[in-house]
């Protein structure tokens, strides 16, 4: 006669962990002074609608549109150049971080990359603005510093995960270490690296728009300026330009990544 196997023993660890997680969520809400009722009072709703109404209609005068266009280009240039610098430094950092020069350089470079990417773009921008002054250069350097940390780590992981046999085979055939890397390992990882780069470029477009708020030029700086003067129609035009730019870059990046991963 067949006997049914015994059911597995109940694992209490997961239940205890879930209960602890629930307790943490409840404690978080209880400790924050969230005044939910005040969000939905008639006064709150009225002032929100007044604020939103102030944004319409957006400013469409040619001089302002021209100014917004140049700021859009500045934001695009900041994100593009910041990403390009990040790719160059990220690739250079990824070589030691992938363990190609031994365990000690790997650990040291990974620590550097952790620091670079742990500091948010806004904090980097505040530091860079002190060093480079107000304007797009500081913003570009801030984007480059944070993104180099992110891309350096992602590139290093890609290099570590690449199949080692092609490079070993080329080394056996008498290729120098550099030639073997460029002919065997880099081409394997290049589509993935390109995909990571495009994704980070998308993020940097959004970040570049925000960085202007701390004085790093572009659309963000315009937005901060007009909001602080309560020129809501002008601010609305800037916000629309930001939305269009992000949508455009997202679309291009998505299409390119699809081609690369096909």
């Amino acid at each position: 006669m067949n006997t049914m196997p015994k059911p597995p023993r109940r694992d209490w660890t997961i239940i205890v962990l879930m209960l602890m997680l629930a307790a943490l969520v409840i404690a978080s809400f209880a400790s924050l002074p969230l005044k939910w009722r005040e969000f939905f009072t008639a006064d709150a709703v009225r002032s929100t609608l007044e604020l939103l109404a102030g944004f319409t209609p957006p400013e469409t005068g040619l001089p302002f549109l021209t100014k917004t266009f140049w700021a859009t280009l500045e934001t695009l240039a900041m994100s593009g150049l910041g990403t390009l610098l990040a790719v160059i430094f990220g690739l250079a950092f990824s070589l030691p971080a992938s363990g190609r020069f031994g365990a000690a350089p790997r650990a040291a470079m990974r620590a550097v990359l952790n620091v670079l990417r742990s500091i948010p773009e806004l904090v980097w921008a505040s530091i860079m603005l002190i060093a480079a002054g107000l304007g797009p250069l500081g913003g570009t350097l801030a984007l480059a510093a944070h993104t180099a940390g992110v891309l350096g780590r992602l590139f290093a992981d890609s290099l570590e995960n690449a199949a080692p046999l092609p490079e070993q085979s080329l080394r056996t055939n008498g290729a120098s270490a550099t030639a073997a890397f460029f002919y065997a390992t880099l081409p394997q990882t290049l589509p993935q690296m390109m995909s990571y780069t495009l994704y980070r470029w998308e993020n940097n477009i959004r970040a570049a728009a925000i960085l202007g708020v701390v004085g790093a030029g572009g659309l963000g700086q315009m937005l901060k300026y007009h909001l602080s003067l309560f020129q809501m129609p002008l601010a609305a035009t800037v916000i629309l330009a930001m939305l269009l730019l992000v949508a455009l870059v997202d679309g291009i990046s998505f299409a390119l990544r699809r081609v690369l991963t096909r």
Partner: protein
Amino acid sequence: MLELRQLSKSYNGRPVLDRLTWNFKAGEFVAIMGDSGVGKSTLLNLIAGLDTPDATPGESPIIVDGSPMSGLDDDAATKLRRARMGFIFQAFHVLPHLTLLQNVALPLLLNGMPTARAAEMLDAVGLAGREHDFPHQISGGQMQRVAIARALVHRPALVLADEPTGNLDPDTADAILTLLQREIKATGACAIMVTHSQLAAQKTDKILHLSKTGLKETTTSIRLRNN
């Protein structure tokens, strides 16, 4: 062509190869057989300069085409392999992102030689017209043909093959070995093939058996006896 003089290798004090001595001649196709773990692949690695033999007083235990392998630093050993040796592996090791022509041309590029011969070699191994195909578009047998073309394209003095037919069916293996035999004779290289297959070994000029007591010629191959 290749001289082994009292070649020894041990790992953690455990001897793997013990005072091997043999003289391989140019134009000779030799099979090395032996039990698993006896040191066949170690021997190939030592000949290729990918591993270092135990230190021996006096002359180098490995001499390739008149050049002693001992004392060469990594850079010099790499240059010697690039110019004078060709390799064929069981798993083909063809680069997937390069076309067949680019794969075959690679040793020529690395040696700074004109690449025109790559197309000739692809033609010689029966892959004319497939120059611009990628490795994923061809069969395992065809990939090993590409590997043979790549190993011989720069006219190396020494070809080292590690189980080149291990991943192929018997008919394809036979065709590949016939091709290898023909191309080795055409280029005048010395070829050493490590194999477990008696059928593959029968295609060579000489079969050597590697054991703890050293290298010993066991059987002159059927092909040679028939000749």
